[in-house]
């Protein structure tokens, strides 16, 4: 299935990760599975930023870790520059690991508090053979590139603020000059003004080093700002995918509209006239997802067919795909305008 992003750097096909749930008094029997990632297909073109949005429990973090083979997939394929990653052993993966790196959400938990910054940033380099003075100078250069100074090399993580620690994490990810960086909610734990700094930094680095990003977030404003294309996940599946501007201006799947309408618009008058879709209750358990369309239990537009037949991802043109029996732009266009008044909507 070609979900576009031609000339792909990363191609994910029908990726599945289920976590078994075991019960039993004496012997463990598998009684169910947490379907964290349940058949995801995506591709990422070189140099682009793919935004991945969804709530907690939708599987986006599991997806990232499974793509990088930090977690072993249950089934499916992940191709990086045409090479299959799934099924490869540790040593075979190592040269490919250089090319794919990850930045984590929690700047307090993702740095080893017992190591100095220089060691943290230098560790990937050392692992791949660098040492001595060359190692030091590379580390210094990296720190400076992310806006820290070389004198920070000898300090410990706890001496830095959240934003600075995130910069350290970025320097570490850049160390091996990867092609792809997966950013798992890199700014969620930061204050708003520091978020802007880090986002600007990530964008500058992308231009300078020709990086490709997969940017995971639940903050839709941030995702819109940085992404070229956006994928929306719900309970382990992609429900909508398309160019960022398109998805925001003309969402097709009701869940996407829900996410959009939940984001406050920092303009009191505009915000006051919105009619957001507010869902009640919590996300269903990924161990027991609703049958057919997973969203039908919370969807304000669901009908009988939604609980019987699972909708497929359909191409609506221009690289905009969605999986829904009642695409919003055809059946409820007024809901879109009511929930998200547009200052400058892209013409359809």
């Amino acid at each position, binding site marked *: 299935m070609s979900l576009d992003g031609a000339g792909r750097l990363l191609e994910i096909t029908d990726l599945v990760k289920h976590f078994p749930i075991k*019960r*039993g*008094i*004496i012997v463990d029997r598998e009684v169910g599975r947490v379907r964290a990632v349940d058949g995801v297909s995506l591709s990422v073109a070189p140099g682009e930023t793919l935004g991945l949005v969804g709530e907690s429990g939708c599987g986006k973090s599991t997806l990232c870790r499974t793509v990088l083979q930090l977690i072993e997939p249950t089934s499916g394929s992940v191709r990086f520059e045409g090479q299959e990653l799934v099924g490869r052993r540790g040593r075979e993966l190592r040269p490919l690991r250089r090319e794919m790196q990850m930045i984590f959400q929690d700047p307090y938990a993702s740095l080893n508090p017992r190591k100095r910054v220089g060691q943290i940033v230098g560790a990937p380099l050392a692992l791949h053979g660098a040492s001595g003075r060359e190692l030091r100078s590379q580390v210094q250069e990296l720190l400076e590139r992310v806006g820290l100074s070389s004198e920070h090399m000898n300090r410990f993580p706890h001496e830095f603020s959240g934003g600075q620690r995130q910069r350290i994490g970025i320097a570490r990810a850049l160390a091996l000059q990867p092609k792809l960086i997966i950013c798992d909610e890199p700014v969620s734990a930061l204050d708003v003004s520091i978020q802007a700094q880090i986002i600007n930094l990530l964008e500058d680095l992308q231009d300078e080093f020709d990086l490709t990003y997969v940017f995971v977030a639940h903050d839709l404003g941030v995702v819109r700002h940085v992404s070229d294309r956006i994928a929306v996940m719900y309970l382990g599946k992609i429900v909508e995918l398309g160019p960022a501007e398109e998805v925001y201006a003309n969402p097709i799947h009701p869940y996407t509209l829900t996410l959009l309408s939940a984001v406050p618009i920092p303009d009191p008058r505009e915000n006051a006239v919105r009619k957001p879709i507010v869902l009640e209750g919590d996300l269903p358990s990924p161990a027991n997802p609703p049958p057919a369309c997973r969203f039908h239990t919370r969807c304000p537009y669901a009908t009988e067919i939604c609980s019987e037949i699972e909708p497929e991802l359909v191409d609506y043109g221009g690289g905009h795909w969605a999986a829904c029996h009642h695409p919003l732009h055809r059946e409820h266009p007024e809901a879109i305008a009511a929930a998200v008044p547009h200052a400058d909507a892209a013409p359809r």
Partner: protein
Amino acid sequence: MLRYIVRRVLWGIALLFITSAVIFLIFNILPSADPAVLRAGRNAGPQQIAQVRHTLGLDRPIYVQFADYMRAVFLHFDFGYSYQYNYPVRALIFQRLPATAFLVAGAVVIWLGIGLPTGIVSAVKRRSLLDRAMMATSLALISAPVFWLGLVLLYLFAQDLGRFPIFPGQGAYAEATTFFGRAEALILPWFVLAAASAAIYARYLRSSMIDVMAEDYIRTARAKGLPERTVIMRHGVRSAITPVVTLLGLDIGTLLAGNAILTESVFNIPGVGRLLLTSIERSDLTVIQGIVLFGAFFIITFNLIVDIAYAFLDPRVRYQ
């Protein structure tokens, strides 16, 4: 919950089997002295030694010996015969167990009664003079060797040779006949055994309390308007005490297994520890083996109790 308990119990039984096998290995494959020689006495000739070996069944293949051993232990609860006393090991241990149990019980009560409040007060009044004094004292008590402390206390307080003769002296336990007589004889040993543990528990609980009192739910409890005493006891101590419970279970298990050996020796208490000491001196392998096996049983059992208790104390553990 049921699943949790059943699994722990089954695992405990399995562990007993494995431990018994390992003990058998240590005592029957590795020992330095030939048990037949030991049993036969000093001036035994080679024929007598061979006879003894046959009687003891030591000339049979190892796996047969092992099967007999396991069968004896698990089906008949038979731990063999002491070479020295010519007495069933099991009976020997059971004779000594009450003294050790009494010693340990009293010590536990004292060290919890002193250690826990000390830990709580130190944590609540952190960095105060009281806290520093308590921690310094506890450090001293942990550092002091048990036998040294015992001897010093005897020197000071024993009725027969002490400076301030208040308590019965060494050997009093063996001579005592009534329950209270025995209890009186154990007062000094209780304190000796409890000293280091009280100090350890105080420090442990203090550290645990300091962590717990910094948690968000303590702030919520205060924001609800609860009196500080309730916040400390019902919210703070309740959380902080769970690691202490684990520690307690293991401590009791190991003490019953003969870990009170030093205290029992200093005060001449006829407990399991003393039996272990004399058996080691005389290379009475069967007794040593029996005590080790018994000890493993106690430790595994108390470990099990602690695990189950933990599930009652911390509801999150039940839903693994």
